[in-house]
């Protein structure tokens, strides 16, 4: 187990290094260069000073040299300045991480029990009408464009009915907890609907399998009530592999968060990354994307470890 953990961690570090190089190169392909974007619109600018600035910032050097410089200072804790916010990248990203974490945690807190409930209901009688309706909902969930769901909810609940705010964060930074929650209702609803479909399908499939297994038949034969059988025996066993499904879904959930944050104007990681790319803020985009990648990687790593730890039948190779 220890050897497996260490080897997976080392692999993850390697993957992160490769990803950082890849993202560095990709972001370098965005229009303009950092100096140009910084000084854009400055009338005093001559080609000579521009060239001087480029030399000063090392922009004129080949890609791998620049990556080397970036990596060295990144490893020393210096991730550079955001050219839009004029602040260190981490100062900008810090509060954004908190914001996104709130959004994702709330979504998971609702999605997981909801998926378990719906999945278990559907699995009780496969092919029945409950199952059909739930599977239709799951199909809708994977077919709905999240940005459109957001717009429709805003039109209905904010514009027409006026019940809920159309922005995801309150204007005042010292808003009360309940006020913050009210602003989160629409974003969390959209994200939950987007996230829950694949989970339901998964829980349903795995519940059907467990309900047909020998130990569940035994439990039924012992005369235990249906609720006890489903809750105590089947659901618990169906849950172990769900750890993996949740972790693998993290990347797509984060993608959904980007869209939702952008529409509801929430200053989370997704929105920051989106703005950074739109405004060609090289440092901010690079670090934001890298952080998102690292979190996704770590979540899949944790899932694999948790899976191995929870299920004694899995042998690590």
């Amino acid at each position: 187990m220890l050897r497996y953990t260490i080897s997976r961690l080392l692999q993850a570090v390697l993957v992160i290094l490769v990803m950082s190089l890849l993202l560095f190169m990709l972001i370098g392909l965005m229009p303009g260069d950092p100096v140009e974007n910084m000084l854009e619109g400055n009338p005093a600018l001559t080609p000579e000073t521009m060239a001087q600035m480029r030399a000063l910032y090392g922009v004129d050097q080949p890609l791998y040299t620049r990556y080397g410089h970036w990596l060295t200072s990144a490893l020393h804790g210096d991730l550079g300045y955001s050219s839009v916010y004029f602040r260190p990248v981490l100062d900008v990203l810090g509060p954004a991480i908190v914001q996104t974490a709130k959004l994702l945690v709330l979504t998971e807190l609702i999605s997981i029990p909801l998926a378990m409930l719906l999945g278990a209901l559907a699995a009780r009688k496969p092919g029945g009408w409950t199952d059909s309706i739930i599977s239709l909902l799951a199909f809708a969930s994977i077919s709905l464009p999240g940005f459109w769901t957001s717009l429709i909810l805003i039109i209905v609940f904010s514009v027409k009915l006026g019940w809920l705010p159309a922005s995801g964060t309150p204007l005042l930074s010292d808003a009360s907890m309940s006020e913050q929650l009210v602003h989160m209702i629409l974003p969390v609803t959209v994200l939950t609907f987007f996230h829950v479909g694949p989970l339901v399908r998964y829980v349903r499939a795995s519940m059907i399998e467990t309900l047909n297994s020998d130990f569940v038949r035994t439990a039924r034969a012992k005369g235990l009530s249906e609720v006890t059988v489903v809750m105590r025996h089947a659901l618990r066993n169906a849950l172990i592999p769900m750890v993996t499904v949740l972790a693998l879904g993290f990347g797509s959930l984060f993608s959904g968060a980007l869209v939702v944050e952008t529409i509801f104007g929430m200053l989370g990681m997704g929105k920051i990354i989106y703005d950074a790319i739109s405004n060609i803020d090289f440092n901010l985009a690079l670090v934001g994307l890298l952080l998102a990648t690292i979190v996704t990687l770590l979540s899949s790593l944790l899932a694999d470890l948790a899976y191995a730890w929870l299920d004694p039948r899995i042998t690590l190779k």
Partner: protein
Amino acid sequence: MSTVTADKAPAEAGRNSVWSKRWERFRHNKLAMISLVFLALMAIACAMAGPIEHFTGIDANATNLLRRFRPPSAQHWLGTDDLGRDVLLRLLHGGQVSIAVGLLATVITAVIGIAIGVTAGYIGGQFDNILMRMTDCIIALPLIPVLIVLGAVDLTKIGLSPEAASSPAVVFLRIVIIIALVDWTTIARIARAGTITVRDVDYVRAATVSGAKGPYNVFVHVLPNIATPLIVAMTLSVGRIILFESTLSFLGFGIVPPTPTWGNMLTNAQQLIISAPLLAVYPGLLIFTTVMAVNFVGDGVRSAFDPRSEAGSRSH
């Protein structure tokens, strides 16, 4: 199981019957059939956009500020938008883009995915390890942010002239390629898993003993035997790709106005949700119903091809 002498089957009966049984099973799936008809009608309607413009003399891109926000009428069935353009025509044009991107990107995705997956699975060893670590890397990426970065890439930095970089064909191909670049991993994994199973089956070994080389085995034995899961995966990926395209276009990194797409029509509608909320309804409704229909068809194909219902043949 029939015996050899029981009846004299025509030459292609065996193969035809496999496909006709699949079609039979698919045909009995009401949801999938309705979806298939819906998609066919949608494709025809979208293809009609050009002829309709020609006969009615309405140009989908012609702005007319005197005719803004008109309600539905005999001339403009779904009314006009903020620039006085016919909404229905723009939706049909947008549909052309979405469907074309969905199909083309799926084909490219499949070609890349199958080539990589089958090669990795057939050769195995270190080569397979490296390729699979690569797909792990791509799967670890949050897709939408990466698609946005790819969408923001300045094509003049990779050697295209400024005119070429902004031509409609390049903009269209660019989004197709971007999506294919991140989406091939699903198909690659399926192709690899299938290849690994078939590679060491005795009928491939028998061919090897008779002097068959890798390419022969791949094309003659491996591909036909892993076609089923690949077809299912490809159908399902059409829906996913249409969603990717619309999301990217909505965020401003896909296909940009004036070319209408369902995604970028919504970008515009987002500004107008108070004055013209209906403009935000139509494009999204079309994305939703189209993707839903594609997914129903995919699900229908999946159960029609399900090996458990494939009578008589043992599949791998």
